[in-house]
C-alpha cells in the first residue's frame, strides 16, 4: 500500500472524523478512518447499516447533509487536491473533475424531465462553453462506451424510458464524462436484479481498466467484491475493522466481526444451514464516541480491555491489517 514518492494517489484519507451536530445532539459517524487508493486501483468498502460507509463516500465528494452542522477532522486529498480546505463554491466548480459518484438508485439521481444527453455532459457544460452539437456528440459517444444500444436515439430519451440496468449505465456515463481521477460507487447495483448487476459491475471493471482512475465500491454485500476489487475495507460503527486483499479477507478473515459477517451470509454452495449463525446484539449507539472497540459487546472473543482501550492496527500479513486485541495477542504468541 506504500506509494512511490512520484505517484499521486487517487485518494488519500487520514484520520477522518465526522460528527453531525444537530442542536444539542451529536452523532459520531466516523471515528478516525484512513484509506489510500492508488490510480487504477479498486477498493471495496463493505459494512452494514450504521457503519458510516456512505457518509465516508459522501464526505470525500464534499456532500454534506442538510439541516445539521458537520464537524470534520483529518484530511482528504483527491488526486493531491485538498478536499476539506476547499470552499463549497470550489467543490461545486470542480464537481466531477476530480471525483464523481454513481448512486444506488439511478431513477432518483437523474432528473426525470431532462433528456439524458444533457445530464450526461452536465459536468462538462457547467464549466465550459461547449457547442450544443459537440456536447450531444460527446454524450452519444459516452453512451456507446457504456454499452447502451442505439446511442444516437437513446441520448434523446428521458430517464423514465430506460430499464433500471440501462439507466445505471447512463449514470455511469455521466459520472465518467469529465474523466475523474476517482470514481465512487455507492451501492450501484443494490436496486438492480442479479443478472443485470453482473453486467453493470463488468462495465465498471472495463471503465476503470480503460481510464486508470481509482474506484471505491461501497456495498453491504461482501460477495459482490470477489473478483471486482483489489482490496476490501470492512467498516463497523464508524471505524475500519479490517483491510486486506479481497480474496484473503473473504477466505481467511482475521477480525471476529468479518468472520461473523461471513458466517451469517447464506450460501449457494456447501452444506445447507438450517440454523444460520447470527451475530447477536446490535450496533452501539452513535450518539456517543465509542470507547475501546465498537464491536466489543457482540464479540465472541471479547476481553476486558476491548471495552476501554482502542485496539491497535495489527499487521496479519503484508497488506492485511485488523484492528483487534485478540488478533494482537495471536500475533504476539506466534512471534
Amino acid at each position, binding site marked *: 500500500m506504500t506509494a512511490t514518492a512520484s505517484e499521486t494517489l487517487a485518494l488519500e484519507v487520514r484520520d477522518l472524523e465526522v460528527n453531525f451536530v444537530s442542536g444539542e445532539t451529536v452523532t459520531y459517524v466516523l471515528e478516525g478512518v484512513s484509506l489510500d487508493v492508488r490510480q487504477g486501483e479498486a477498493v471495496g468498502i463493505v459494512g452494514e447499516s450504521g457503519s458510516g460507509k456512505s457518509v465516508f463516500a459522501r464526505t470525500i465528494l464534499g456532500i454534506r447533509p442538510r439541516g445539521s452542522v458537520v464537524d470534520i477532522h483529518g484530511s482528504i486529498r483527491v488526486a493531491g487536491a485538498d478536499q476539506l480546505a476547499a470552499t463549497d463554491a470550489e467543490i461545486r466548480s470542480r464537481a466531477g473533475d476530480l471525483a464523481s459518484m454513481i448512486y444506488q438508485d439511478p431513477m432518483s439521481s437523474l432528473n426525470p424531465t431532462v433528456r439524458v444527453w444533457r445530464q450526461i455532459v452536465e459536468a462538462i457544460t457547467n464549466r465550459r462553453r461547449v457547442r450544443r452539437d459537440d456536447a450531444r456528440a460527446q454524450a452519444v459517444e459516452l453512451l456507446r462506451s457504456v454499452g447502451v444500444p442505439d446511442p444516437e436515439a437513446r441520448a434523446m430519451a428521458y430517464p423514465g424510458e430506460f430499464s*433500471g440496468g440501462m439507466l445505471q449505465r447512463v449514470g455511469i456515463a455521466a459520472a465518467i464524462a469529465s474523466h475523474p481521477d476517482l470514481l465512487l460507487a455507492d451501492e450501484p447495483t443494490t436496486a438492480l436484479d*442479479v443478472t443485470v448487476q*453482473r453486467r453493470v459491475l463488468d462495465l465498471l471493471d472495463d471503465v476503470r481498466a480503460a481510464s486508470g482512475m481509482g474506484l471505491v465500491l461501497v456495498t453491504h454485500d461482501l460477495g459482490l467484491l470477489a473478483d471486482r476489487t483489489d482490496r476490501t475495507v470492512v467498516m463497523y460503527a464508524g471505524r475500519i475493522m479490517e483491510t486486506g486483499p479481497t480474496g484473503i479477507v473473504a477466505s481467511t478473515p482475521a477480525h471476529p466481526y468479518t468472520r461473523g459477517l461471513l458466517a451469517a451470509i447464506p450460501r*449457494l454452495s456447501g452444506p*445447507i444451514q438450517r440454523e444460520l449463525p447470527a*451475530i447477536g446484539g*446490535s*450496533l452501539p449507539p452513535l450518539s456517543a464516541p465509542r470507547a475501546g472497540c465498537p464491536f466489543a459487546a457482540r464479540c465472541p472473543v471479547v476481553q476486558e480491555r476491548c471495552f476501554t482501550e482502542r485496539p491497535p492496527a495489527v499487521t496479519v500479513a503484508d497488506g492485511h491489517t485488523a484492528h483487534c486485541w485478540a488478533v494482537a495477542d495471536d500475533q504476539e504468541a506466534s512471534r
Partner: protein
Amino acid sequence: MTESTIAAEDIPVLEVTDLEVRFGSGGATVYAVNGVSLSMRAGETLALVGESGSGKSTIAKAVVGLVEPAAGEVLLRGRTQAAQRVHRDKATRADIQMVFQNPVGSLNPFMTVEQNIAEPLRNRGVGKAERGARVRELLDMVGLDADTVGARRPGQISGGQAQRVSIARALATEPAVLIADEAVSALDVSVQATVLNVLRRIVDQQNVAMLFISHDLAVVRNVSDTVAVLHLGQLCEIGPTEAVLSAPAHHYTAALRAAVPEPGVPLGDPGMTDADPPSPRIKPTGCSFRDRCLAATALCAAERPALTMVGPDRGVACHHPLERAARAADPVPSTLGAPA
C-alpha cells in the same frame, strides 16, 4: 392446525390453479401472472424466486385477495376462495397472514410493540387478560422478551426486532398460511440470519405453510423445501429446492444461479444473452425467456412449453431442458481431487 388426521394432511393447505393476473386494460395491459399453479402443505416452505417483474409479489397479493385474478382460483384447504379479501369470511382472512419487506413501516408507529401484536387479537374478541398472556407467548416465539421490548414503539427498536414483531403479529391469528414477501431483504446480513432462523422454527413448530418470496437464491436455499422459479409471470421450474438449485433443468434457473456472487467465489459463465427481459405489456407468446436464452429455437417462439415432470416432484417448462448429465456438471468448482 393441530387436527392431524391423515385425510386432512392429504389436502394441500393452499392451492393456486392456473392463475392469471392483469393490470390495466387495452393497450396498457400488463400481463403480470400468466397461468401459474402452485400447491402447499402444512409445515412446508415454498419459495417463489425471480427477477423484478416475474410476478412473485402479484401471486402473493392474489392469495391474500388484494388483486383480482383474470382467471384461476385460490383454494384454502380445498375450498375455493372469493377473489377479493373483503368478500372472504373472517376465519379465512385470519388464516392467511402476510409479513412485508419494510418492518417499521408495516407496524403502527403510535402503538407499543405489545399493542401492535394485541390488535388482531382484540379484533377477534379475545379478552384483555388472555391477550396479555398471548402477546407474551407470541413475542417468545420470535425470540423477543416482552419485558424489554413490549412497551417500546416501532421507532425505538431495531429493524430486525421490528421484523420479528411483525412476524409475531402475523402469527397472532394462528394462520395456516404465512406469506413472507421479501421479509429479510431490507435487513443487514447479521440480523437477517436471526429472522430467517425464527421463520424456520415457526414453520416447524407451528406447522404453518410458508410462501417465501425472495430475489435471493442463497437465502431461499437455506430456508425453503420447494422452490418455484418465475420469469415474467410464467412458471419455469418447480421442485425440491436443493435439487433445483444444484442441478437446474431450466436455462433461466441456471442463469439466475450463475449470477449470484458469493464471497471468495469467482462468477461462472453467465449462461444467457445480454437481452433485457421482454416487456410485460406484450401479450406473452411461446416461452417468455427465449430472447435471453442461449438454447432457444423457433419452437420456443411458436409454442409455450408446458410444465413437464422430469423427476420426483420436479417440473420444468422448457422445450430444451438441461440434461441431467449437463446439470450434474455444476459450475461451482470442486475442491476435492484438485491437483496440488
